[in-house]
């Protein structure tokens, strides 16, 4: 379980981005955080993973105070973070990156298990470098595979749909539906996409640095569909593609 208490954060030049955010993500639940661009969603995700340090407030993972832990320590404590723009590495293979994630060398059948969860064939990918020869869809899948390999208590995905084409997105949604069906630990997804919202247990709307609404997915979807003004048109229906 993740618990955020009164989290605030400002940019170095003093612009308030997050204002007094408190949120609980229960065990075994998928929470989707949505809201308009610039509302603070990615900042919140980065604060949870330790990429940014909150100005005030406390963060607890399974009742352990992780507020002052750095990125490495939070990873060790059980937090995984999937980047919105996956990082590329010249010379580091898919196999090496997944083994670094898992914390051990892995036989091909294990690599195959992990990569098949994101729709990739291990034989085709394990020896490829995580470099610019991978397409946007491929590197996104590998990014997701790196966090799945960690079996973390909490996994945070920052806009998994960003920067990929329609065809990759459609199959990525299937991947998330499958991850959802076998979810262990808790999961947070920052997303604008209706089909991601549809698989959530809870939906949280963050706008202007604050939580504007939160609740069970069914009732939140109803509210969002009834009145886009609540969400500030924060999510995109598939028809928009």
């Amino acid at each position, binding site marked *: 379980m993740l618990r955020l208490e009164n989290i605030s954060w400002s940019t170095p030049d003093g612009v308030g981005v997050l204002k007094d955010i408190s949120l609980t993500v229960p065990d075994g639940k998928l929470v989707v955080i949505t809201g308009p661009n610039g509302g603070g969603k990615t900042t919140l995700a980065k604060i949870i993973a330790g990429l940014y340090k909150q100005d005030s407030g406390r963060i607890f993972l399974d009742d352990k105070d992780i507020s002052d832990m750095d990125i*490495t320590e939070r990873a060790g404590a059980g937090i*995984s973070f999937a980047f919105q723009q996956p*990082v590329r590495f010249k010379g580091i293979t898919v196999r090496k990156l997944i083994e*670094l994630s898992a*914390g051990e060398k892995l036989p091909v059948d294990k690599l195959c298990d992990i990569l098949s969860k994101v729709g990739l064939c291990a034989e085709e990918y394990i020896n490829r470098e995580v470099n610019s020869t991978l397409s946007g869809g491929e590197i996104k899948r590998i990014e997701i595979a*790196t966090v799945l390999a960690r079996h973390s208590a909490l996994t945070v995905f920052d806009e998994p749909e960003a920067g990929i084409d329609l065809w990759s997105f459609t199959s990525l949604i299937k991947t998330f539906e499958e991850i959802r069906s076998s979810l262990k630990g808790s999961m947070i997804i920052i997303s604008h996409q209706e089909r991601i919202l549809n698989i959530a247990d809870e939906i949280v709307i963050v706008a202007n640095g604050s939580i504007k609404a939160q609740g069970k997915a069914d009732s939140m979807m109803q509210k969002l569909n009834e009145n886009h003004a609540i969400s500030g048109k924060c999510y995109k229906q598939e028809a928009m593609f």
Partner: protein
Amino acid sequence: MNEITKDLLREISEWDGEFKGAYNIRENGQCAGRMSSKNIKIESKKDQPGLEIFVAPGTKNETVSIPACVTHGNVDDLVYNDFYIGEGADVTIVAGCGIHTETGEPARHNGIHRFFLKKDSKVKYLEKHIGKGHGTGLRYIDPVTEAELEENSVLEMDTAQIGGVDRTTRITAAKLGEGAKLLIRERILTEKQQTAKTDFKVEMNGKDSGVDLISRSVARDDSHQEYHSVIIGNAPCTGHSECDAIISENGKVDAAPELHARDNDAALIHEAAIGKIAGEQILKLRTLGLTEEEAEATIIDGFLA
């Protein structure tokens, strides 16, 4: 053969007490062991220090090892090795040089290698350079490689110098005939006050010849590297060079690639990137549980792998 040579051989070649295939071991300018095989003859040059290595036409899947070791200071070793690769042969050449000094005197190995590849032959050339020992004497390795590739021959060079060598100047020059291919993969890491200079000149003279030159380097501490490549397309050909460098601390890298298209159907490309390790790369690896230091080492190891 002394113990230092044995240690160096283990690092620069696949020596495990013996070599598989033909070999010549050079130790402080002297021959410390040699064996020819049925298809690969190794002979001493008559007019200057060095070897003539003859690979018979049609030789397949054989290896010849010619490591050179300098095990103490005050040695200035110069050697000329010529490789004659027969038509249709397909062999691996394991070169490599280890320099060890425990004194304040300099130690140097200068290997001048010439390759003559006949039609349809193929050579994989592996070269690893290391510097060892606690002496303050400078360790120099200055290789010169010249290659002439006849019709449809292929030379694949894989070279690595990962630290320990204080001064190096690497010169590589090649002339390619019709359909010939040259693949070069170079990796250099310098640290402390080390300097490394690498200079390539490739002339593509035959139709459909091609070169792919990939250089990756890491300059740490106060070290300095210079990269210079000249690719000349005198015929319909393809040329690609890529120079990637990571700099850290006060490391400096100068890169000067040149492309010269002298034929309307010459297609030449150069890519170059120099910079410190991207912060995002370190962050990503830290989110997987690595410390900042572990992340840096992993990125550099992968980059130079």
